[in-house]
């Protein structure tokens, strides 16, 4: 029903969405697709009290490159503002390994801990209590959607606009369909908590925008089973419902498996994902891959926003409220995917100076 | 004593579709040695295992021990409480474990349930073994002991159980069951066993003795019970039957005519052989294992027996020649071709036309899960290949022919070899090697545990193969057998060949004399275990 020459041109409306609404949706996508600008989320403060302290930075798994780089970058930032003994904690992922990291922080006399990429503090409740007792400030970075209540187990957190990524994705899918009703497939990995909110958002958005005309099917595949099951499951879903035209992914690591299933099924369905991880965006630059959009944050930006939050609580400043502490996302589409190139991967570098300006009294570089 | 030691009534056992025992009745009196005889696969061991509680018999059977009715099926592990002690076929030892662990593994009372004091147990075990004249380190792993020592350990273990049962309960009645214990024992150790049996019987206990070695049975047993196809065909007193009658009872009237008592078939002596050096098998200065420099020649078509006491090195020769164990020096010439003995490997040996039939058939000679046909044709599979395709049908047909020729029962060669009885399995092994028409056949105890009829068949087949020029080296601790089959017997002592028994001199007695004489002359203390029971 849809084709490429339709997209971008404002023409007559589809059968369920009025032309006005369609233009609005198009505007939403376009806005999200622009390079984000840095906006301070809190007042400037002095980092002088932090001099000589040290933090430990632990990624959700060292086997995820983006998170691993981000955790290492948090350490570098900390060192640059006067915490030279800060360290990175390498681990294989999973609560048992995180427990070891927390132990090391507690035993090693660290002052702050950065949990990178949303290690769920509730899955480490005893360690969080112990850290608090030891006077360690724990900040979790990119933990949950901004709409979620803040965790009371940790000093502060930064969040992400997971649900908004799905709102924009739904808008993009409807724009792609030119306002005609479509069926959608949502693939989640429910052991990863933001999945649940994202699934709900996709359902809500379709209900809001196209009522009963659009159907949303869901499948849940654990992350560890992507390689063995995902392609087959998507193929089956497409056999079961050949009208599916948009596949939403709660995690863009699913992309290679979903894209291969779409190609094999020879449908026109396209993918819309949360993530904006480099490999997925790189795939998007290949026009043969049926990808419609991928929205997510920049790891270096998250490293700065997370470090900012951590420095605030360590310096005794009030934390930025969880609902407001996040690094902005960018929507990548086949049109702008080629902008995601080094060094900034399509996010500019306005945030670096922006954050540095907030940290007063930092030692000279 | 008015009771009997043991009574079995109407014992039957079916395995799947196979009827192993049908309504067996048997009685053992106090203080007697009862021989249980029968062909391979007639159900002797099955009966023993019913007694041990390993197999549940079919309903309807009765067991009476010392006048007391024992409900069947008997739970596993309770037979020893009734004074039934066993040496099972193949000894029933856990080979990866130490001797001591094997002694303790029995469900035994008396020992502490919660604290084995190993130091004390080691001393106790050593003492116990010594009291039976068995000088084996209790800490040794059974695997690493020579088969005789393993047998002695198993026998001592059973005897000790019996003794402890009697001490503990004060009972005079108890039964020692020995299932083919002599196959692992060289002649001189058999007397140790018989002394032990006599001691046991003198104390009022009874013995059930199972063996295919009829002269031994004649020597020790008081009465006999014969099974055929799972049925009792005779109970008799030993003194009431002649040797020929026993054979007839075992194999059936028809088959008996071609089987002589003991070891059927006689070797034609005084045949002429081509003794040109290098024409057959020539061995010079073979060193390895116990051998310190064996010289030996076997002419084409000749059967040379190799005799020696345990530890003389004779039993190493076939394995060293075949490359199954590594030799350190020596020279082997087969039909003029010299083989590098220190680098000898089975694969090279096969290429050179050597064939080995090892003593441990179950472990070394047949793949139990694989079909008879495949086992038989393994060495010649390549010849059944036509245009790249293995012609399995032709292969099976050939195997069927061979099975026919050797009277392998059952004839169906598609069954796994593991289902065949010992004698039949050995025929398959023989067929497998004869298929490549070897230049030299090396045999080590080829008729161990093989019944009297199958044994005669095997002798016949080997003899026939020599007519085409095959040389045979036959190592056996059974001197009757060597006397029957050999054209020449070479006596080994101290690792070298010391004398030869030839021509019409070849009698069991002559071989025995030569072997013991040689041992005395070289002054070797070949026997690692003392020969007499002291308890």
């Amino acid at each position, binding site marked *: 029903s849809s084709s490429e020459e339709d997209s971008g041109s404002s023409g007559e409306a589809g059968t369920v969405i009025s032309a006005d609404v369609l233009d609005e949706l198009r505007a939403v996508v376009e806005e999200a697709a622009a390079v984000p600008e840095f906006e301070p989320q809190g007042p400037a403060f002095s980092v002088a009290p932090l001099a000589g302290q040290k933090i430990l930075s632990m990624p959700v798994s060292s086997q995820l490159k983006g998170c691993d780089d981000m955790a290492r970058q948090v350490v570098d930032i900390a060192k640059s503002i006067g915490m030279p003994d800060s360290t990175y904690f390498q681990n294989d992922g999973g609560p048992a390994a995180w427990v070891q990291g927390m132990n090391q922080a507690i035993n090693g006399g660290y002052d702050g801990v950065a949990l990178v990429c949303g290690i769920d503090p509730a899955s480490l409740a005893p360690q969080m209590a112990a850290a608090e007792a030891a006077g360690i400030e724990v900040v979790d970075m990119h933990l949950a959607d901004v709409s979620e209540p803040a965790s009371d187990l940790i000093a502060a957190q930064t969040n992400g606009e997971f649900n908004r990524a799905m709102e924009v994705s739904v808008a993009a899918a409807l724009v792609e369909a030119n306002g005609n009703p479509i069926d959608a497939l949502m693939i989640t990995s429910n052991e990863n908590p933001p999945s649940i909110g994202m699934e709900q958002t996709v359902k809500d958005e379709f209900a809001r925008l196209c009522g009963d005309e659009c159907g949303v099917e869901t499948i849940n595949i654990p992350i560890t089973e992507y390689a063995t099951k995902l392609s087959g499951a998507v193929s089956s879903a497409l056999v079961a419902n050949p009208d599916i035209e948009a596949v939403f992914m709660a995690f863009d690591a699913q992309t290679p498996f979903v894209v291969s299933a779409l190609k094999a099924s020879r449908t026109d369905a396209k993918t819309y994902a949360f993530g904006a991880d480099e490999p997925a965006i790189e795939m998007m630059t290949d026009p043969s891959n049926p990808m419609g959009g991928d929205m997510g944050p920049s790891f270096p930006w998250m490293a700065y926003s997370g470090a900012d939050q951590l420095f605030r609580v360590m310096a005794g400043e009030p934390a930025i409220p969880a609902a407001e502490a996040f690094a902005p996302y960018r929507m990548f589409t086949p049109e702008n995917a080629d902008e995601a190139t080094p060094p900034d991967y399509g996010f500019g570098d306005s945030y670096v100076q922006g954050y540095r300006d907030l940290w007063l009294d930092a030692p000279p570089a | 004593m008015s009771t009997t030691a043991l009574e079995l009534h109407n014992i039957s056992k079916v395995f799947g579709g196979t009827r192993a025992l049908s309504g067996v009745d048997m009685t053992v009196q106090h203080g007697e040695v009862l021989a249980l005889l029968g062909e391979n696969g007639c159900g002797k061991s099955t009966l023993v295992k019913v007694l041990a509680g390993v197999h549940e018999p079919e309903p309807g059977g009765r067991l009476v021990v010392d006048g007391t009715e024992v409900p069947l099926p008997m739970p596993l592990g309770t037979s020893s409480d009734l004074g039934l002690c066993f040496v099972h076929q193949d000894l029933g030892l856990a080979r990866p474990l130490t001797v001591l662990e094997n002694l303790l593994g029995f469900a035994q009372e008396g020992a502490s349930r919660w604290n084995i004091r190993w130091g004390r147990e080691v001393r106790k075990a050593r003492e116990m073994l010594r009291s039976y004249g068995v000088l084996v380190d209790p800490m040794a792993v059974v695997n690493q002991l020579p088969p005789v020592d393993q047998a002695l350990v198993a026998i001592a273990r059973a005897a000790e159980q019996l003794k402890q049962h009697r001490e503990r309960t004060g009972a005079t009645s108890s039964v020692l069951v020995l299932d083919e214990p002599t196959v692992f024992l060289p002649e001189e150790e058999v007397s140790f066993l018989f002394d032990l049996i006599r001691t046991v019987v003198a104390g009022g206990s009874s013995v059930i003795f199972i063996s295919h070695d009829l002269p031994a049975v004649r020597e020790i047993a008081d009465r006999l019970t014969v099974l055929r196809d799972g049925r009792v065909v005779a109970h008799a007193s030993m003194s009431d039957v002649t040797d020929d009658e026993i054979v007839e009872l075992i194999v059936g009237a028809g088959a008996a005519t071609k089987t002589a008592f003991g070891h059927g078939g006689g070797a034609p002596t005084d045949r002429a052989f081509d003794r040109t050096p290098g024409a057959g098998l020539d061995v010079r200065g073979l060193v390895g294992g116990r051998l310190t420099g064996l010289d030996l020649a076997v002419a084409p078509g000749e059967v040379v027996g190799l005799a020696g006491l345990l530890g003389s090195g004779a039993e190493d020769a076939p394995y060293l020649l075949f490359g199954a164990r590594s030799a350190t020096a020596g020279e082997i010439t087969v039909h003029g071709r010299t083989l590098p003995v220190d680098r000898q490997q089975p694969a090279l040996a096969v290429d050179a036309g050597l064939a080995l039939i090892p003593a441990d058939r179950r472990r070394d000679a*047949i793949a139990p899960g*694989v079909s008879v046909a495949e086992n038989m044709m393994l060495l010649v599979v390549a010849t059944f290949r036509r245009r790249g395709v293995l012609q399995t049908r032709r292969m099976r047909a050939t195997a069927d022919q061979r099975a026919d020729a050797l009277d392998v029962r059952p004839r169906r060669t598609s069954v796994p070899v593991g289902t065949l009885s010992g004698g039949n399995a050995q025929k398959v092994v023989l067929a497998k090697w004869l298929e490549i028409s070897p230049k030299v056949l090396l045999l080590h105890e080829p008729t161990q545990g093989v019944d009297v009829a199958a044994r005669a068949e095997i002798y016949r087949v080997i003899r026939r193969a020599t007519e085409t020029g095959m040389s045979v080296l036959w190592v056996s601790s059974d001197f009757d057998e060597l006397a029957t089959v050999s054209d020449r017997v070479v006596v080994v002592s101290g690792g070298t060949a010391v004398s030869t028994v030839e021509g019409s001199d070849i009698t069991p007695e002559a071989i025995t004399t030569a072997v013991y004489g040689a041992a005395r002359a070289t002054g070797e203390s070949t026997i690692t275990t003392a020969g007499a029971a002291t308890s």
Partner: protein
Amino acid sequence: MSTTDVAERRGAEGAPGESGTPPTTKTRGSWAEKAALPLAWVVLFAVFAALNPDRFLSMGNISNILGSQSILFMLALAALLPSMVGDIDLSLGSIGGLSAILVAVLNVQQGVPIGLACLLAIGAGALCGAANALFVVRFRTEPFIMTLGTGTFFGGLIFWIANSTTIVGVSGTLSEWTYVRVIAGIPIQFYYCLLVMLLIWYVSTYTPLGVRALFVGQSRDVAALSGIKSDRIRWGAFVLAGVIAALGGILYVGTTGSAGPSSVGAFLLPAYAAIFLGATSIQPGRFNALGTGVAVLFLATGVAGLQLLGAQDYAQQLFYGGALVAAVTLSRYLRRT
């Protein structure tokens, strides 16, 4: 690692002595036992077809069943070889992963043409297999623990080479030749697997080498004393398994157009499930190629059928586990009666 234990062997034993009465069970496993799994497959197929005729019998679904499990199929065939000769190789998942990442890195980052990259990956697979053989066969160690160790080591190499990230953008030619082209509606890679399966089946059934390998697998001592060079055959099995696992890795890259640090490894246990399940069928009691193929398709059919019915992920796992348990128990039961 033999599939028969003592008790089973005893049970299977027919009867000497009783040569007069024909045994009730035929040679290795009755007809019912040999055919149990294929029949179960047919029944499963029929049930799903009845529940959902339009979709289940659609070409798209058939193609999905046959094509989507090619990586598992290939890895199971790799696992089959060492198992047939009495070994076990737990490093094959890592070898497949290593091959996948090598193809991706060589092609994308080093600009090596895709054909050459695949050849190099196959070479690496052979090398890994040879390393396994060296340790297990030459140094005479226990294959279970040894290949667990080498597998972990190869896994480390993958992360090192991949730098913990997913590499995308592999030449489309590879996808073209594995996943995109179809014959009779089924991706071409399915036929590759079929080819390898038939090759293994042919060699193991219709060549002297196959008979020798059978003896090595079932009674290694006997093989040695029959002049069979067991070590050489075991080396061959490990090296070839490495090569086939590498092919599995290449199929992975072809299917997904990418390779990540944890890719093919996840297929290892399902692959072993398939070969053990296959050993209950066609030639019961022996690891065999046709049985493996049937097992892969049986499991793929069940999973695809449940997915079509919209079953939850856990239902698929319950099916998978339940099917294994039921199939093995049933085949055991059939052997007994």
